[in-house]
Each structure stands twice: as C-alpha cells, then as structure tokens.
C-alpha cells in the first residue's frame, strides 16, 4: 500500500513554502527535511526537551508534537526568521551571544524561540516569568543561569528599540498566497532524492 500524500503550503518566516508529505510528517521533520530549514533541532521528539520549539501564530509550540498537515494556514516562525534579511543578528540572538547563554548550541534554537514568544507577550518579564517560561527547555551545558541572564538582556535590548519585534522581522505579516515553490536547501541536510525522512520507512 502506498501511503497517501498531502500537498501542503506552510507559511514559514513570511514565505509560503509547498511540500508533499504523508499525514504522519511531524512539523519538525517537514521544516528540516522537506524545506531544508535545519535551524529547528529535533531532540527528544516527545515534547520534553524543547529544542524544536517554533512560533505558531506567535505562540511557542513543540514542532515535534504537531503534524505538518495540521500546521497549514498558520504563520510559522523558526530560528532562521530571527536575523534580519541582511543577516544581522536579532537582539535575542545578540543577548545570548553576549551573555554566554549557550555553549554547544544544540538547545539554542528552542531557547531563542521560547524567548521570542515570551517577550512578545510580556516585554518586561519578571524573573519568575522567565524561569517559568524557560523551565520547559533542557540545556546540558550552561546550567541555565546565563540563559536567564540572556533573556533579561534581550528584554533590555528590545526595550531600547534595538531591532524591533521580538517575533522577528516578519512578525504580524499576513501569510501571502503561494507565489512559487521555494527552492530547497542544498548541502548535507537536503532531503534525500524522492523526499522523505530517515527512519520513516520503519514500522
């Protein structure tokens, strides 16, 4: 039996992207394998580690606990959408770099997107709010103290008007109608010929 495929459009960082996926494709895998956006990391794949956190209509969610087919029509923001079009780091990214809010960097995309969601809703969070927000993400390097410092610093930078909207340069922009199939990324993480995700064939 060949598996039914769905032709979907995902609005990622303001750009409509199309893909053909089975219903079981997780959003995290669709982003990484079908769209070549490998900034979103897949860690535990059962919602515990937080590495795969992205914004869905402005709210941080686990992309490993969301089907790509369900995410159609929503505005998705990934870590690739934080930096400006010229590559200038977003204030949240600058804060994490300045305050040593990362070491190996594996968990960082999830922390950055969780921070973006927090600061969008609460531009001047209390320490308690920061801890409550970050408690759902795991980091095995930093011991978390520098992460909470980074979040406070990010709030300061954003309040000082250094880079605008916490959710990134495309925040608030309406998803446009698909214009053209966006090119897939090349390189070692590009989807295998014929599409699909390693491991998916296993039953």
């Amino acid at each position, binding site marked *: 039996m060949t*598996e*039914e495929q*769905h032709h979907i459009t995902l609005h990622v960082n303001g750009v409509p992207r199309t893909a053909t996926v*089975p*219903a*079981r494709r*997780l959003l995290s*895998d669709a982003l990484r394998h079908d769209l070549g956006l490998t900034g979103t990391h897949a860690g535990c*794949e*059962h*919602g515990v580690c*937080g590495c795969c*956190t992205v914004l*869905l209509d402005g*709210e*941080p*969610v*686990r992309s*490993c*606990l*969301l*089907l790509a*087919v*369900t995410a159609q029509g929503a505005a998705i923001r990934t870590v690739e959408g934080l930096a400006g079009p010229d590559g200038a780091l977003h204030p949240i990214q600058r804060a994490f770099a300045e305050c040593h809010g990362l070491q190996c960097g594996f968990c960082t995309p999830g922390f950055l997107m*969780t921070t973006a*969601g927090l600061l969008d809703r609460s531009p001047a969070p209390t320490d308690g709010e920061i801890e*409550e*927000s970050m*408690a*759902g993400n795991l980091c095995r390097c930093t011991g978390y103290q520098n992460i909470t410092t980074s979040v406070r610093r990010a709030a300061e930078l954003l309040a000082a008007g250094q880079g605008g909207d916490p959710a990134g340069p495309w925040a608030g922009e309406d998803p446009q109608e698909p214009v053209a199939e966006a090119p897939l990324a090349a390189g070692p993480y590009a989807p295998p010929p014929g599409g699909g*995700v390693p*491991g*998916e064939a*296993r*039953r």
Partner: protein
Amino acid sequence: MKPPPFRWSSPGTTAEAVALLAADPRAKVLAGGQSLIPLLNMRLASPPHLVDINRVAELDAVEVTGDGVRVGALVRQAHLERDEAARKVCPLLGDALPLVAHPVIRNRGTVVGSIAHGDPAAELPAVAALLGATVRIASAAGVRDVPADVFFVAPLETALRPGELVTSVWFPAVPPATGTAVVELSRRHGDYALCGVAATVDRETGAARAAYLGVAPVPLVLDLPADDPGGYAAASVDPEADIHATAAYRRHLATVLTRRALAAARDRP
C-alpha cells in the same frame, strides 16, 4: 521516532467530525496532540485514522456564567489559564492549569483533551472529579452528558465509546463560602506529580472534600473527616511504585499534601 502511517481527516464542523468518527470506529480524535503525538512517535499507539479537530472553530469557545464554565474541545490550556472570567467563577481551574506541563505545552494542549486522555496523574481530571464536572459527548446517536465520577474508568480509560467526540466539559462554580486549593509535588517543575491534592472546604460547616491524583487508578474523591484527614487519605489511596517514587512515599505525600491543601483552601480570601 516517527509516527506510524495513518489516514488523516480534517473536518470543519462538529457534525462532520462526528460523521467521520461514526464511519470508522477505529478512528481517534486528534486535539492538541500533546499526549497522542508522543504516543505515536514512540509507537505506543497506532490508530489507523486520526480525526483532527483543530479546524473545528465552533469547539474553540469558553462560556462563563455565574453557575460555571463550559469549555469547548478546542480550548487550549493556555487560553483558559488567561481567561479572568473563568478563573473567577472556577478558581480551581486557575490554580490547576499552571501545574499542567509547561507553558509551551499548554499553548497546544486542550483542557478537554486532558480529560478525554484520562491520565490518573493529570491535574484537570482531578479538578473535574472534585467539582462534579459533566462531560458532553456527541456521536451519531446524539448527545449525552456523563458525570465525571463515572467518566474515569481506569488509567487512560474513560466512558468514551468508539465513534464519540467530547464537545465540551462543564465545570460547576463552587458556592461563595467554599475555599479551594490545589497542591502537588513533582520531581522537577512541570513534571507529572508524584501525588497531588485538589480540595474544597466549606468555611461555614468545615466540610472538606479532596481529589487525589497520581495515587489511584482514577482521580480519587474523598469526603474527609474533621479528625485526622491526612491519615484517612493515606489509608484510602492506592498508590503504585515506579521509577520516580515508592508507593510508601506517595502515601506519605497524600497525608502531607492533604494538610497543606486544606490549610490553603481554608485561608483563601
């Protein structure tokens, strides 16, 4: 970890969802996916068909009256947590929701999904059982209302039958003289609790009732005696040992947390 293959339907209305469920008794409802998708990813479940209710806008409604709060099947936990009117009528919901997982999980997870999932360690089933909530269920046969005390049957097993969709849950308001509180203990912030207690105390008569999570196969509701309520609770719960805690430790927690919950409920302004 990838889910096994399944057929996916995305109805736009409750009627369509119910028709899809009626046509395929093996179909499962997909709501927030915060319990179901981990089960699929770990291949602990492999339903042949998922009826995804995320596009059924009519289920995304909270109705608040002086008598209680009706929560539709698509209302996210984070949404209800921020609903001031609902929290005012049902303070226990406001107390319990922040204890459910983490904010990012609550952005997707639904209140009704947590109840339909029927995890005996979950907070919302205990609150539903304590308050005498009613689960509204739709199917091709019509609509039925099932009281929480018979809805929870066994761990992860409820009175839901194949072909049925929970459309909403009704949480009745507590009388003005009643104080409420929820307390729990977990290994790490946001984890499922080792033991938790949701309590109501009538400040005029002193009558106390509590629901226990994590220490019985279903949320356990007890009318507590005035004399040694903690001891009574410890004798009534039926905890199991697992990697996180021994049964004896959970029983001990039932005593301590009963005391704390009753004190907090009594002191509530």
